[in-house]
């Protein structure tokens, strides 16, 4: 048996935490099926390979590439474009690649603010106020490090994407199912879903998989889960005033968090056809607030101390907003806007 007949597989991480890689390995013995059916040609976390090896490959020679992480710098973008060119099927794998995820929340801050926090806050010892420079001339020649973009972009804001597989990280049973499917396609036993499809998910929302009892909604107060003791194990969390995002979040995880007594925070992203997850959820929550007086409504809404984190924790970069300047950062606004303008020039 020669390796060359096996279809080629690649996986890459851009701006991400590495959890997606762990999730892939977490499919246990199924990983052997990956090895049996694919030749792994590029997977920096698991094997040694150089970018130039990828550059040398023929266009379209990799059958399946799982790309996780958002596009934070020009290295991320370069590899995204390179892998797009070399891959038949490019999958935006995990929440970061699909919609920006936690790294995308940095889109509420300018590059300057991010660097200030990273290099100048009290816990950082930086007496010379050093900042990374993308290009630096040395006697020996110029050294370059990746250029840090003003905002984080999702994979499909940079290249054409064939499939989306959301989750932070995607559930292992879903990864296994997708790999099974691809293997069956290879064996001619199944067909690929239409391009642009979201795969490894259910076709409804988390509520569909959640077994908690639901009644007609009316919310008079939002509470943090730790402030509510005891949490009723049978009743819908939202009904108990815990801001559970399950109703807006795509199914596929078997309602893991709500089953374990924690609210859904929305890592599987919006339901099919929904353009802006946060806007949908804001509208839904607002609809079930049971109050008529403006002050009372205000009081109830104050129960959600971090609306950006509540509604856009995973989806900011991929939302209609894409980025924003929070109201409390008025002074930074002009600077940030200018930087965003420059960012568009690229």
């Amino acid at each position, binding site marked *: 048996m020669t390796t060359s007949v096996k279809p080629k597989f690649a996986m890459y991480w851009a701006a991400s935490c590495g959890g997606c890689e762990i999730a892939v390995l977490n499919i246990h013995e199924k990983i052997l099926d990956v090895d049996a059916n694919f030749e792994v040609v590029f997977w920096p976390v698991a094997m040694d390979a150089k970018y130039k090896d990828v550059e040398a490959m023929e266009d379209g020679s990799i059958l399946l590439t799982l790309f996780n992480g958002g596009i934070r710098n020009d290295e991320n973008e370069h590899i995204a474009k390179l892998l797009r060119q070399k891959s038949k099927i490019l999958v935006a794998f995990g929440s970061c690649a699909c919609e920006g995820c936690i790294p995308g929340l940095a889109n509420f801050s300018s590059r300057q603010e991010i660097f200030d926090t990273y290099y100048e806050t009290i816990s950082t010892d930086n007496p010379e106020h050093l900042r990374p420079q993308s290009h630096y001339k040395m006697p020996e020649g110029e050294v370059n490090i990746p250029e840090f973009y003003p*905002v984080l972009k999702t994979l499909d804001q940079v290249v054409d994407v064939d499939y989306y597989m959301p989750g932070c990280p995607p559930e292992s049973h879903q990864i296994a199912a997708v790999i099974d499917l691809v293997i069956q396609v290879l064996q001619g036993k199944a067909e690929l879903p239409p391009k642009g499809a979201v795969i490894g998910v259910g076709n409804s*929302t988390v509520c*569909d998989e959640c077994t908690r009892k639901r009644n*007609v*909604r009316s919310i008079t107060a939002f509470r943090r889960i730790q402030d509510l003791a005891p949490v009723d194990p049978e009743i819908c969390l939202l009904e108990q005033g815990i801001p559970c995002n399950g109703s807006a979040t795509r199914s596929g995880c078997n309602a893991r968090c709500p089953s374990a007594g924690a609210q859904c925070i929305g890592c599987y992203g919006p339901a099919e056809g929904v353009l802006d997850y946060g806007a*949908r959820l804001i509208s*839904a929550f607002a609809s079930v607030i049971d109050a008529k007086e403006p002050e009372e409504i205000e009081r109830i809404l104050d129960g959600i101390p971090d609306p950006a984190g509540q509604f856009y924790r995973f989806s900011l970069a991929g939302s209609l907003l894409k980025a924003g300047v929070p109201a409390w950062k008025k002074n930074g606004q002009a600077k940030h806007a200018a930087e965003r303008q420059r960012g*568009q020039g690229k």
Partner: protein
Amino acid sequence: MTERIGVYVCHCGTNIAGVVDVVEVSKWAGEKLAANGVVISRDYKFMCSSLGQELIQKDIQELGLTRVVVAACSPHLHEATFRNACKQAGLNPYLCELVSIREQDSWVHTDKVAATEKAKAIIAGGVARVAHHEALEPLRVPIHPDTLVVGGGIAGIQAALEVADAGFHVYLVEREPSIGGHMAQFDKTFPTLDCSACILTPKMVQVGSHPNITLLTWSEVTKVDGYVGNFVVTINKKARYIKTEDCTGCGICWEKCPWKVVDEVFEAGLGNRKAVYTPFPQAVPKYPVIDAPNCAYFLKGTCKACEKFCPTGAIDFNQKDETISVPVGNIILATGYDLFDAKRIPQYGYGRFDNVYTNLEFERLCNAAGPTSGNIVLRDGKTVPKTVGIVHCVGSRDENYNIYCSSICCMQSLKFAHLVHERTGAEVYNFYIDMRTPSKGYEEFYRRLLDEGTHFVRGKVAEISDFARLPEEEGKLIVQVEDTLIGKQRRIPVDMVILSAGMQPRHDAKEVGKLFGIACSADGWYIERHPKLDPVATMTEGVFIAGCVQGPKDIPASVAQGAGAAARVLGKIQQKEISLEPVRASVDEQKCSGCRICNDLCPFGAILFHEDRMVSEVNPALCQGCGTCVAACPAGAMSGTVFSNEQILSQIEGLLLLTVNGKKAEAVTA
């Protein structure tokens, strides 16, 4: 894109063309939007004229247009016109989109270049949207022939009688124990000086005995479900503690009742009534009510004098509020007005000085059936005033209170002046800003007053005080006013002051409006569908308004509106069926996870939840297409026809000129 779209830009005379370069806009649309499917773009002087409509129809037939965008006025005005024109030419009317370049463009901008660019963007939005339209058929539903009239003042009485006389059933709901409204409190009506009760009570009796009218006094509407043609109205009948089937209205109960209560409503605080009472002798219905919060039995558990003496055993202290719900096809709101609270102007001394009266108090004071049997006397009950000052525009035409003119105060004040003069021979001063007597016979009445020797002082009263500076001011009320005709400050000592307090919207007008789904203007009056051409209809189909709810007006105007609203309702009833916009919400059961967020939101009760399948469903017969559930659905499982995501988002892309030249420009990233 396979649609063949026609764009029609209207000049609307100079309404649009005066600000927007319509020729340029039309040319631009023909060229730049050609790749988006626009095959023809024309401009025309009046698109809504029959020639303009024919232009569109000819193109539909000759060029095979599959979509039409008309850039003209607001859809409220001419959407029906152009849809109808398309329908006649064989194109489904819902494939026509009217975009407003008048109300939303030419009328609100002065910069011609910018307005022209905006018109282009608006049209690009319409073109992008119309491509996603679907052919729809209007829904036809039957109209329930019964009508609800809310408010038993003169406007409501007139409306109820008109509808009932035409042979249709009416529910007349009134919050007070009797119908009659403010008109029942007046003594005389201007300018003819007819006895108010004499002309009103026959109508009240007619209402009370009409076979087609169900009179529900001492009742309030608590809930309105449904929509035009098929409302379901929930009414709370407050407990009267009287068995109306046994009561003969003989009056023994209120004769025997030992408890006197100041009558703040009908007698405006000037007189007393008993704890069991009818507000006035000619009340309709004749049955009294027991005022439980002021009744000895309810307060202390003893008394029951009325029960002991009632010859027919009609008193029932155990009665409870009763809730009924009735189906009706149309609703007329005639809930009237509240009097401006004269205490809000402390310098006029109402509430501080005994002999400062409001207009409503004075009406009762000079009413033969009132607390003084029609004798005009001071608060002491015996002194006849020798000089009387009447202040116009109290709380009206005043930036500090209400900016509007209450429209009846001039005539009412003239009427007061006449009555004072006639009955007491007192010297009368009228303090006015402008004299407004525009209706039939009003100016003649003013002249009559001039002849009667009433003093008219043109100026806004600054203050009414009891602080005497001169001996002749001792014990008098002094009206401090600038007489603007002689350019001098004057101090005029009088014995009695009458404040012509203006009209203002009912204190609960906003909540009541919400109940019936209609809106208030900034002043608080209900907004009519069109201020000139549709004054009794509202933006909510099937809900009409009449009388002072729509704005201050006199009795003839209220009667005319009551009759007008009735005519509109009768027109609807005669149609038997109504065609409804096919704008409806529907649920994609696949996507619905049964989260139940939408379940309690529907104002029309159109959403059902299937416990067994854990999905929600919309009943299309009840759905009104308001979109509340569509916006709320977190899963995107709910969608609304004519307002799909595709339609809205493509219109936005068009507005942002992202789709010009057929290419969808790169969405701005970050």
